């Protein structure tokens, strides 16, 4: 006789042999559980399947409770949610591992580096490029110019050097292009919604790409003659050949994004009109104004804004510089300026920076290459005056600095050495100490911060106007690297999509399990040197704008990719724990306490290992071995907090395990894994 009852208002029919969980599953209602598997006896360990039944004082485990006629079951109530969330949080409070690799977590756009590196290792270049496109477009361009926070976080550096993640990305994108099989954007059916994007730089292009994928009609307006923003007008040709950028912009254009150049907001098009005409507007105009140094003589001829200088290059001009050029600043823009000055024929190029090399924000490789090209670095000096003749700069006075106490950024603060100054003769000065946005007159007053940037919410990217969003350098967070602008645009696009679909506008911050590692953890890892990027010698490159890198060969790329330590959990896409953790918004740090960090990884068989630190003790592995396979190669040892699944059988008995992998399949997390067969196959989404 069947039983009728309801779950969250939906009628469910159960047979007498049913539990709440089995009958719900049949009715298409998912009840979360970690330890239930219909092939094994009911166990009831995880406490995730708890439900509340009206009139029943205790919460019930859906995996074991038998429904009764007329039961009114709630999958969510304050009590259930608390108990279930606590179960997950407690599990995660003693779960040691890396859901995702540090590379991905350190990428502002959360690009799945480990995945595409693995795909490159396996020669699946198109898959690799698709993986990048899940996070952002323009892989060949960004792969060339990104200061790669991914590599900064790469644990391979604890062995010798990080994986060359950025160049691998560029390699894959170049490779499929060369193979005549370029990436094509797949878009959802048209929604009929229209979005205007102001600015065609990395942020604008990324947002356009995602919004188009979501099926919206997108138009980018840009003041420059061509799209690309700072990628085109801020980064010199020798670093990013514009043909590469053109090719990648075309992929976005081919997806149906309309691109309008030569129009400036506030001049050619009006903010209010756009806002009225389009369903949503994204402001992504970037930060194009060079910061002033506020020292006397700044208005002398020959003192240029670094960004303005690079923009002229981008527009095709060849500005003439004197023989002695000083570049002020220590960031990547300063490097672009000084190296461009070298290429324009300046005999003496100085970089004036008030701290030391260790504090320079520019990428190490940029500094090295600038040095190779003959640039002189004047550290611990700060310009205090420019002076000249006939209105043209002829020299600058530098204050000698020394490092004092650390400041808010953690870097030691430069302080002047009293009375110590130095004069250097210069013909031109390039100021590269920062960039600012300049939105005055372009948008409504109420959108602006005091710094002239656009004020928007950090989680929703929304401005003071409902349908106006902002992303990239133009926002209150100010100028940063391209991938940061891209990351904002990626999230802003999601928020705009949510807005257009009428959903809650919010970018989610996913939860991941992470761990700290030290070089000692990798002592046994065989060393394999990072592949050297082939390219022009300093002599070959200092008088022209030819691309300085040739790109990896295929062999190099695969060798390089094979260095990956695969820090991220192999089971991420199948892991039920992390799935539930994010579904139920866990905050496990509340229960932070002792965590297991067991040194030995028990070997179950020739091809199966068990990581007890990822084990949730659901018992599925040993129960499956016992009840499904009919063997008992695994068992629970100890009790309480020390309980562990262990194949601690005598060595000789291990060969009896037929490695049927049923335990691996049953494991809801990444605790049971097989190797090497499965290890080398990168997980697909």
């Amino acid at each position, binding site marked *: 006789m069947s039983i009728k009852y309801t779950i969250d208002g939906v009628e469910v029919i159960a047979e007498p042999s049913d539990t709440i969980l089995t009958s719900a599953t049949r009715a298409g209602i998912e009840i979360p559980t970690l330890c239930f598997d219909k092939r094994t006896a009911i166990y*009831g*360990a995880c406490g995730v399947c708890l439900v509340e039944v009206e009139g029943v004082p205790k*919460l019930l485990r859906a995996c074991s409770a038998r429904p009764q006629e007329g039961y009114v079951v709630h999958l969510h109530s304050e009590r259930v949610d608390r108990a279930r969330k606590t179960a997950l949080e407690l*599990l995660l409070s003693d779960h040691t591992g890396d859901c995702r690799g540090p590379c991905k977590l350190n990428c502002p756009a959360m690009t799945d580096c480990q995945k595409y590196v693995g795909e490159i290792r396996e020669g699946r270049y198109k898959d690799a490029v698709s993986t990048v496109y899940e996070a952002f477009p323009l892989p060949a361009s960004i792969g060339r110019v990104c200061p790669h926070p991914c590599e900064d976080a790469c644990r391979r550096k604890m062995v010798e050097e990080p994986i060359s993640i950025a160049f691998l990305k560029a390699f894959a994108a170049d490779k499929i292009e060369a193979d005549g099989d370029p990436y094509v954007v797949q878009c959802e059916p048209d929604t009929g919604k229209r979005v205007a994007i102001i600015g065609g730089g990395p942020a604008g292009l990324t947002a356009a790409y995602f919004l188009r994928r979501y099926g919206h009609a997108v138009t980018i307006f840009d003041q420059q003659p061509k799209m690309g923003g700072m990628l085109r007008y801020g980064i010199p040709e020798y670093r990013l050949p514009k043909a590469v950028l053109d090719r990648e912009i075309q992929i976005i254009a081919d997806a149906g994004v309309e691109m309008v150049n030569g129009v400036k907001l506030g001049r050619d098009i009006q903010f209010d009109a756009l806002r009225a005409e389009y369903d949503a507007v994204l402001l992504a105009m970037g930060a194009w104004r060079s910061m002033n140094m506020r020292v006397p003589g700044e208005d002398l001829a020959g003192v240029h804004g670094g960004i303005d200088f690079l923009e002229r290059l981008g527009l095709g001009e060849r500005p003439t510089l004197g023989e002695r050029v000083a570049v002020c600043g220590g960031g990547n823009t300063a490097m672009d300026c000084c190296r461009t000055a070298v290429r324009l024929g300046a005999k003496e190029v100085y970089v004036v920076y008030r701290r030391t090399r260790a504090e320079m924000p520019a990428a190490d490789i940029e500094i090295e290459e600038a040095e190779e090209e003959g640039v002189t670095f004047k550290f611990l000096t700060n310009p205090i005056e420019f002076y000249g003749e006939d209105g043209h700069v002829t020299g600058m006075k530098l204050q000698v600095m020394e490092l004092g106490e650390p400041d808010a950024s953690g870097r030691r603060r430069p302080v002047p050495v009293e009375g110590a100054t130095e004069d250097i003769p210069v013909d031109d000065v390039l100021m590269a100490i920062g960039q600012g946005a300049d939105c005055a007159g372009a948008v409504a007053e109420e959108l602006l911060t005091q710094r002239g940037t656009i004020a928007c919410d950090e989680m929703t990217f929304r401005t003071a106007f409902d349908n106006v969003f902002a992303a990239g350098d133009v926002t209150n967070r100010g100028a940063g690297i391209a991938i940061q602008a891209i990351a904002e645009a990626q999230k802003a696009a999601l928020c705009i999509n949510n807005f257009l679909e009428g959903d809650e506008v919010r970018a989610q911050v996913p939860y991941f399990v992470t761990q700290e590692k030290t070089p000692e953890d990798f002592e046994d890892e065989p060393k394999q040197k990072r592949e050297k990027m082939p390219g022009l010698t300093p002599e070959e490159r200092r008088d022209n704008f030819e691309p300085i890198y040739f790109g990896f060969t295929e062999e190099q790329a695969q060798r390089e990719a094979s260095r990956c330590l695969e820090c991220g959990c192999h089971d991420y896409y199948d892991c039920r724990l992390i799935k539930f953790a994010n579904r139920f918004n866990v905050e496990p740090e509340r*229960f932070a306490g002792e965590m297991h960090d067991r040194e030995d990884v028990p070997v179950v068989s020739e091809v199966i290992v068990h990581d007890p630190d990822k084990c949730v003790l659901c018992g599925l592995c040993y129960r499956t071995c016992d009840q499904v396979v009919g063997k008992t190669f695994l068992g629970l040892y100890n009790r*309480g907090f020390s309980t562990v699944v262990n194949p601690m059988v005598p060595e000789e008995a291990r060969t009896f395990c037929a490695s049927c992998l049923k335990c691996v399949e049953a494991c809801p997390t990444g605790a049971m894994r097989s190797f090497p067969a499965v290890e080398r196959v990168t997980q697909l989404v």
Partner: protein
Amino acid sequence: MRLIVGEGSCGLAAGAGAVHTRLQELLAEANPTGVELGITGCNGMCFLEPIVDLYDDEGALHRLVKVQAKDADKIYQAATTGDLSLVDGLRISAEDAEFLDKQTRIALRDCGIIDPESIEDYLAHGGYQAITKILTTGMSQEDVIHEIDVAGLRGRGGAGFPTAFKWRAARDAKPDETGQKYLICNADEGDPGAFMDRAVIEGDPHSLIEGMLIGAYSIGASEGIVYVRAEYPLAIIRLRKAIEDATARGYLGDNILGSDFSCTLRIKAGAGAFVCGEETALIESLEGKRGMPRLKPPFPAQAGYWLKPSNINNVETYANVAWIIVNGGAAYAAMGTENSKGTKVFALSGKIRRGGLVEVPMGTTLREVIFDIGGGIRDNKEFKAVQLGGPSGGCVPASKLDTIIDYAELSATGAIMGSGGMVVMDESTCMVGMARFFLDFTAKESCGKCVHCRLGTKRMLEILSRVVDGKGEEGDIEKLEELCYAIKDGALCGLGQTAPNPVLTTIRYFRDEFEAHIAEHRCPAGECRELITYYIDQDKCVGCTACARQCPVQAISGERKSPHKIDPTLCIKCGNCKTACRFGAVQVR
């Protein structure tokens, strides 16, 4: 004259064995006529152990207490000469005698009176009359269960489930083709602070056997199993002998007393796991497995030991059964309250003047037990709280001392009746420390199966540990409470579901102590090591150097006959000095 030495575990621990040996030597040497030497189990007056009961030729009892081996000669003299004035110095005081006088003993009716190793003695005290009555007067299973029902007997092991209900369920459960049902006795008395079950087995094992026989008859079981804690070796020895004797006398085995009722009993020794007090974990353990609880349903009455219908009660519950059958359920129900009938045994210990086993009718107040019977707090200190129900129970404060012993009334305080542990605390006991103590226990005893218990108790213990170490954080109390409620809801078995009780009650009644630890880094009871400082009261110190000699780290300095000082930077707070000082000069702040 008869000399009866109290030889329960407590008595033996206090030196009863040596007394017995000496008396035996003396008797063997002279072989006097008219003097018998015997033993009995614990009479519950643990605070007076070792105890020798001297019965004169008129049968009058002269109770001699705190007897040491050296006193044996005197007692022997008194017994052989009849000059009882020789032992006047050993007689129990009138005040201490009240300890027993104020009790009503049913479960403990023979404890400390009969020789537990003698079935004859049990029979002489009315033993096996109940099972005889059942089997010879044709009482049906339902007749017996009805009597238990009328008595209102509820499980004495903790949860207080009506015994008749369980017996009926097991009786009504359809066995498989083997027809096998089991009757199990839970003698895995794991609550720290409870020892009445041990006392019953050591002092009156046949009463357990008889109670189990009646239970087995009622549900139709032909096999009984007693699951005894491994820590109770003496109980196992005495129970084994009792089973042998009962089998030899035909009270166990086939066709008991000529009826068609057959039943055997055997003992299974536990191996040290508190969770095995939970009935399904106990069954797993009986089957030789890890003692991890099963999910209910199915309940043991349907599918228990080897998945056969099984009934489980604890020792004290069974110990009441024979009395109820002989005296009638109504006589039992005449004692107690509306919802809690009969009597309950408590193990009174802690900072109490007279500690031991106390059996009182339900409805007695906590105050009566602790002050009238237990004599109140020793060393003239203030009563602070009484812990009931062990790791599943809670701490009841002074303001609740007039709570009556009743399942519902005790639950309302946040504690539980439990198995009857009653640990009394005075002003020097830190309540946060107590909460930590219990969580340490449950965390260690958690079987590790379910998440809420395995990790929840661990995290609670960590929070409590940092609080007692003075490293508590703002919000820790709330975090504890949150974990408590989640664990109560989420844990799989009774161990986990009740583990938060000691914490919740201490927070409820002693929140100020938690706050003092967290906000002021102060332990009001002066107990938490990390938060206290030892010092010597310069006015009280006579310079005897006793403390300095006991200090393991040479933190105490001072000239002989002049006041000493403790260097707090060296002091490891071991407390040796305080114990060593005979003048109360070593103090704590």
